[in-house]
């Protein structure tokens, strides 16, 4: 399996994706912005097809669209991103725009599939270098701002009054989220990114209560999903995203079952 370059790259990419998503996912779930994350990935799809349409790379288009939306939402207050109606409007609008750009750029339909659902076969050395560079940038930012980001995510009301530069921290977080979504899209695809950002982190809640334990466990859940998903995909030739989604869903199911049992015994 490791004889193929793209498989080696995909496994390496999995490590970095797990590193970023373990921290970002923990914060996303704490902020209760799972649905906004989903919207942001649809905005990412539309950005990627825009990139193809005007002839820049899909990643560049995705970064532009998601970062711009993150800044917009951040400035106007995160509450907007949580409102149900605005979520529907943005999701629909950007999916529609995505399909428009794709059809204008007269690319084949399989191009859309690979943006929406990812394609590991597509990963080359250049992609992996960009992924690692962006991951390092994100991890550095996380290291520097960790305490502030954690306060801002886990106690938004407390931080609002008692943490200096709190609004700036919120905006930085959303931009980081935009980056995370754009770089993860290459493997799992725009539609399923939110799987890695929200499902494993929701499961860790039932197993760990210290912040660092939650992040470490989340890392394990994500890496297990991505690596096993790649392996099964290699064996069966079925899509990776499918296996990743199923594995993460099983982990979440196990967490719920454990919680249910624990409550039942009391």
């Amino acid at each position, binding site marked *: 399996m490791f004889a193929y370059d793209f498989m080696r790259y995909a496994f390496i990419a999995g490590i970095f994706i797990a590193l970023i998503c373990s921290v970002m996912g923990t914060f996303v779930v704490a902020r*209760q912005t799972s649905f906004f994350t989903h919207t942001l990935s649809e905005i990412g799809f539309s950005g990627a097809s825009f990139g193809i349409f005007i002839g820049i790379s899909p990643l560049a288009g995705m970064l532009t669209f998601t970062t711009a939306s993150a800044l917009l939402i951040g400035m106007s207050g995160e509450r907007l991103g949580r409102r149900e109606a605005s979520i529907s409007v943005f999701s629909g609008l950007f999916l529609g725009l995505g399909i428009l750009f794709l059809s204008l750029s007269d690319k084949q339909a399989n191009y859309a599939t690979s943006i929406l659902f990812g394609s590991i076969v597509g990963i080359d050395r250049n992609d992996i270098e960009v992924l690692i560079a962006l991951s390092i940038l994100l991890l550095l930012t996380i290291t520097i701002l*960790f305490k502030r980001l954690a306060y801002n995510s*886990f106690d938004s009301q*407390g931080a609002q*009054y*008692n943490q*200096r530069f709190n609004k700036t921290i919120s905006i930085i977080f959303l931009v980081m989220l935009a980056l995370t979504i754009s770089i993860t899209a290459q493997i799992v695809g725009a539609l399923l990114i939110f799987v890695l950002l929200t499902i494993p982190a929701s499961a860790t809640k039932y197993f760990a*209560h*210290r912040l660092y334990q*939650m992040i470490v466990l989340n890392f394990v859940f994500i890496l297990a999903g991505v690596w096993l998903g790649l392996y099964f995909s290699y064996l069966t030739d079925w899509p990776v995203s499918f296996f990743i989604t199923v594995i993460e869903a099983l982990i979440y199911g196990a967490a719920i079952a454990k919680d249910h049992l624990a409550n039942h015994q009391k």
Partner: protein
Amino acid sequence: MKSILSVHNLDLSIPNRKLFSNLSFEIAQGSLTCITGENGVGKTTLVKHLLQDLANNYTVHTVFNVKRDEVQYVPQLRNIDDEYPLCIKDFVAFGLKKRNFFWNRKPLNEKLEQILTETKLTRIKDQPLGKASGGEKQRAYLAQALCADPKLLILDEATASLDTTNKHELLQMLREVMQQHGLTILFITHDPELIAKYADYELHLEDQTGVLLEKGAKK
């Protein structure tokens, strides 16, 4: 009387309604002052407005003898549901002004443990905050604020959802930590029993103005 905050001739409006006109009062350093008044009179709005003036260094109607960094505000509503996963210790530690690095881990941890002891949270510090009772949650909010070494502590309706025993326990705790940390406390409440027993002053807001009354706890 040395004051930590004085307000002179403050006018305050929200869209379509005037809340205060010519409001003036002083808050004595080291006192516990209860802010009272009917629902909608503007207690919380007033406090938030004062915090904003302090943050923007706007001193026309308000003079503060503290910096914004030395004030902790404990809001009335917080997004903590039953499923909130983080343990009490980590939640409280968000209040610490310094970050935990390996060279200062020991003193920071000692400080955290000390505050958890003062707020009687040591026994349950590893439990998720979501599973804590109403009284324990309020003590965790208080502990988080204390971690920031405030000089002025403002609590907004902290006893609103507590039963009588827990109310008294929280207020007794506030009087104790006030002494130990040299705090001035502003406490927004409706509860006449608590005001009579624990407050030094009551700032009663009514008819767009306020009166400062001396209360029982004042010697």
